[in-house]
């Protein structure tokens, strides 16, 4: 079973997290936004520990709650290249959340097949991610900041590669920070046979499911007093049902927008962003009563009404 051995995984993650917190350094860098990345990196030799918590809540019907956690350790390999290691874990609770009123798991629990009227509750260790960010141009010495980002993730029956282009432009003595991201995420999940699939369907047998996410993100925040910034983040997420990005493989499109607040001080930082899904979602793979779009918002397995993400980092 999926959860066998989770107690030992929890112990490993907690031990690594606490051990790294106990290390010492004089440097730190922070996440200005909760979703959109900037080109600001750790200096060479600097380290940082970040904790993420993301709450994904609500559907057009039923109950839907997902909590995703990430514990991250960052290291400045050079002044222009930063590496990081993440431990990813998640918890979910859903009930009658599908557009047809049945219970369905979120994407991160896609290997589960709860009964139509079951209350689905589960948690899992999702996997481990490596992250590398290379800054090509600095927003402080060049007209615009530019960085390239790679993040491979490996988990049980999961392979994922995320590639991101980061552009940053600052204004008003660097107190107004704007950033734009283009992200391509390709993931492969080995899924067990779906008991409800028609004989002969790919889903009727164990198989590797391929998906590509193409996301666009824009964020801006203004430091209105020392240490405190407020602003907004905007996301446009597009899904494709294979590694090929073509019109006949596109499936879901959704839009999110909401406020962000950031505190950065000499000891720690905290960033929080609340996003609400905007109307205008699309489901290219299903139509009529099967469409995941209800009242303009997507109810596909990786989308929900609201998202709240909090990141906290400690300088030590």
């Amino acid at each position, binding site marked *: 079973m999926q959860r066998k051995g989770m107690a030992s995984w929890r112990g490993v993650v907690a031990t690594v997290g606490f051990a790294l917190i106990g290390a010492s350094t004089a440097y730190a860098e922070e996440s200005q936004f909760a979703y959109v990345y900037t080109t600001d990196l750790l200096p060479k030799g600097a380290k940082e520990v970040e904790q993420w918590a993301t709450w994904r809540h609500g559907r057009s019907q039923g109950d839907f709650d997902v909590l995703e956690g990430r514990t991250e350790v960052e290291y400045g390999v050079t002044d222009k290249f930063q590496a990081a290691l993440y431990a990813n874990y998640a918890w979910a609770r859903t009930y009658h959340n599908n557009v047809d009123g049945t219970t369905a798991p979120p994407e991160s629990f896609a290997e589960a097949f709860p009964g139509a009227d079951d209350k689905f509750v589960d948690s899992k260790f999702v996997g481990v991610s490596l992250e590398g960010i290379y800054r090509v141009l600095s927003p402080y010495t060049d007209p615009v900041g530019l960085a390239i980002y790679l993040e491979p993730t490996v988990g049980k029956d999961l392979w994922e590669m995320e590639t991101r282009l980061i552009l940053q432009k600052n204004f008003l003595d660097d107190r107004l920070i704007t950033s734009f991201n283009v992200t391509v995420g390709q993931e492969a999940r080995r899924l067990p046979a779906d008991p409800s699939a028609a004989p002969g369907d790919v889903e009727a047998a164990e198989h590797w499911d391929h998906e590509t996410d193409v996301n666009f993100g824009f964020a801006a925040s203004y430091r209105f007093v020392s*240490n405190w910034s407020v602003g907004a983040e905007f996301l446009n997420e597009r899904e494709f049902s294979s590694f090929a990005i073509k019109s006949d493989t596109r499936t879901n499109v959704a839009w999110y927008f909401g406020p962000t607040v950031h505190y950065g001080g000499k000891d720690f930082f905290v960033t929080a962003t609340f996003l609400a899904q905007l109307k205008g979602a699309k489901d290219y793979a299903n139509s009529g009563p099967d469409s995941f779009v209800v009242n303009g918002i997507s109810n596909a397995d990786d989308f929900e009404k609201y998202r709240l993400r909090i990141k906290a980092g400690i300088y030590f």
Partner: protein
Amino acid sequence: MRNEAWIWLPVAAVSTSVYAKTYFTVEQAQQAIFPGAKMTQAFVKLTDAQVKEIERRTGVNVRFDEIRLWKVADGGYFVVDEVVGKHEFITYALGLNADGSVKQIEIMDYRESYGYQVRNADWRAQFTGKTAASTLKLEGDIRNISGATLSCRHIVDGVKRVLATYDIAVK
């Protein structure tokens, strides 16, 4: 059995960072740059026209129209200025020779988590002798410190603005 305990994986550390620091009071900075010299406070209030001219010449925003300036008895000036840091303002002192060239700069308050290399004497020494006619550009005539770029750039811009202010509103 459920595993909700995952969610409570904590980051439970108590920071011991004590890097924010005041290195010089105004009096200490005055003595560091002009040892033993007598000074007279002579704060300057910039006019709107002067602010516009300083910004036009330097391309740097003038955030405060009052210049905290002292006249040194045997010539020269002492200025306390602030520039934007990553989280808070960086306060520094600038000593000018009687001819308006930079004698010395000292970082007075630095409250950031990193970038403390701007206090290094050899980096600050690059400003010595600079005047309002100097280029004063990071990665031009002033060397950058990798990992402290934001602080370096704002201090360079600050010195450039103070030198233009001297040229336009003080001398």
